[in-house]
């Protein structure tokens, strides 16, 4: 797996322990970890005492509202795509960015297809865990195929409507 972050390959310093047992979580490497929502809710204090960066992964049936008052604790929020057809995380991403103002790393994990990177980027993802040897080239293709955006998604890209009616 390769991590693509902000358009470049990136060393992943996080260990994903979200599928492990409680002991694994607390005894895992001293470095940053990604935990599940349930682990966070049961071991919040222990996890905070570790003093490392923390990440959390939400399953597609877990809404980001569960994190709305905890966002300051997470440097990474990963949203899982159990299959590329499950599009719930697109909504979660927008809610995290636009409603709760989350500014950290928003990572797409699971069944992430190259053809979806552009959509994911538009809703607020800035990193992607991919099965590909050539992530940069793939990213550049995915990001440049389409250059017109009709929807304001909070990603900073000017929409067609905004450009049509720009002052002057």
């Amino acid at each position, binding site marked *: 797996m390769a991590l693509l972050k902000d358009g470049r390959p990136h060393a992943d310093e996080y260990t994903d322990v979200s599928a492990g047992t409680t002991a694994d979580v607390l005894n895992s490497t001293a470095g940053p970890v990604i935990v599940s929502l349930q682990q966070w809710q049961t071991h919040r204090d222990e996890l905070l005492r570790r003093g490392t960066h923390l990440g959390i992964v939400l399953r597609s049936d877990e809404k980001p509202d569960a994190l709305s008052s905890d966002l300051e604790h997470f440097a990474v929020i990963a949203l899982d795509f159990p299959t590329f057809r499950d599009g719930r995380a697109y909504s979660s991403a927008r809610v995290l960015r636009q409603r709760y103002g989350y500014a950290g790393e928003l990572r797409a994990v699971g069944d992430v297809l190259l053809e979806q990177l*552009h959509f994911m980027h538009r809703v607020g993802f800035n990193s992607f865990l991919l099965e590909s040897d050539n992530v940069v080239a793939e990213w550049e293709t995915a990001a440049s195929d389409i250059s017109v955006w009709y929807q304001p998604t909070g990603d900073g890209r000017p929409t067609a409507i*905004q450009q049509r009616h720009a002052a002057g």
Partner: protein
Amino acid sequence: MYRYDEFDSTLVRERVEQFRRQVARRLSGELTEDQFKPLRLMNGLYLQLHAYMLRINIPYGVLSSRQMRTLAHVARTYDRGYGHFTTRQNIQYNWIQLQQVPDALADLAAAEMHGIQSSGNCIRNVTADQYAGVAADEIDDPRVYCEIIRQWSTLHPEFSFLPRKFKIAVTAAPTDRAAVQVHDIGLRMHRNPDGEPGFEVVVGGGQGRTPFIGQTIREWLEPADLLSYLEAILRVYNQDGRRDNMYKSRIKILVHQIGADEFRRRVEAEWAEIRDTALQLPAAEIERIRAHFRGPDFATLSDASDLLEQQALANPGFGAWLKANMAPHRVAGYAIANISLKSLDAPPGDMTAAQMDAVADLADTYSNGEIRVNHRQNLVLPSVAQRDLLPLYERLVELKLATANIGHVSDIIACPGLDYCSLANARSIPIARQINERFQDLDRVHEIGEVTINISGCMNACGHHHVGNIGILGVDKRGEEYYQFTLGGSSGADAALGDRTGPGFSAAEAAPAVEKILQTYLAVRHEGERFLDTYRRVGMQPFKEALYGAA
């Protein structure tokens, strides 16, 4: 009508080139069929029983003569010389070769057409009243809002992987010609007590295996809030709609399970968060799009009813066509002329390339170059001067497009059925043909009057059988095709789902069963009463007796 600006045309062009690269990767074997499937579906390309099928959107059913000629060109160059107009105002080509699809799409893009989101679990082509802009009973032109919705929904990054497909229909007239109550979202424009036009928002209607009439979750929505409200509905559905079973994944199931009140509560809560954002439609954009639809300056004509009456007396065929195929135009001296695609010469909705070209020419001569496609698989020339109707009719007779049966017994909706479709259990087209053959006597057809017959070849209901006055559903019964009947359905403002008559009929018995139903109707109807109204008055019993014998 709307013309693409640089943004619209750039997007469609880029999309074609993106798909061209994806097709090349599939043809070289770099992509497997499994990997390619979601990519082709997002561009309207299905794999059917015999070949690929390409579905092209006709946004809200509006075509220019130039676009119609492009559809003819695609039929001739890349297919077998014909196309099939669908109940969603789209066109399908049934025999296309994969390697030629990118070229076909490029030709279509040059005429401002595409197949984006004509399949897949995303927001599909928005449909509308086929008389939009010219209907005498209209409050505003729904095409303005349809085009706004078209752009907003195109490649929407949040809503391209919904639980299931999503269909929006818009009407702005009290007579619902767009079947808005059987759509995922139906928008019906009306005026609030202050006289301001806005939308009633209906959600959760639908057909398929589990049909529902939609429920109103908002009585009046200011047009400037249209996109934020749609986005709120779609977000609730995207997050809360079922994904464990594709037959329970449409929004109608969610609305049914949690109830319209709870669904409304969730939507309104979401809407409160996003209402005052960039989704708010600028008045300048509404006006920019409205200007495209302002349409031609109509000539000042006087009403030509007297002339038409004389012409009809001299030419009874013309008289019958006038009676069945005309609708009132909002401008004096003009008429809306329907062109029936329901003759015995072709399956419902099918049209040859030569006919498409000829209709494009007729649109240029008689109707400001404009054509519409309606959800009953017919065409419309929206603005014909009444004095031109006779020459138009004479030309349509030569083209075998002058069948005088709009809204009558032989104007049958039928899905492609088992002749083409891999989902079907039974054939639809031959049943439509057998019924049509029985009702060739126009006097009899007109004596029977207004009635809709809708045929689906399986429970997915692409032929809208639930909302046909007479609905026919093809099923497979131990390897044999059988046809179940429903009565009393409607997709109009009085929308209703039909009631089952009882056991089904074999293919040979289906058309005789229609005959029995209609004979019963003629025997019990009151003077001037439509089939639907008679059924609502007398109920199932007399029809049951006619079909199955006295109990």
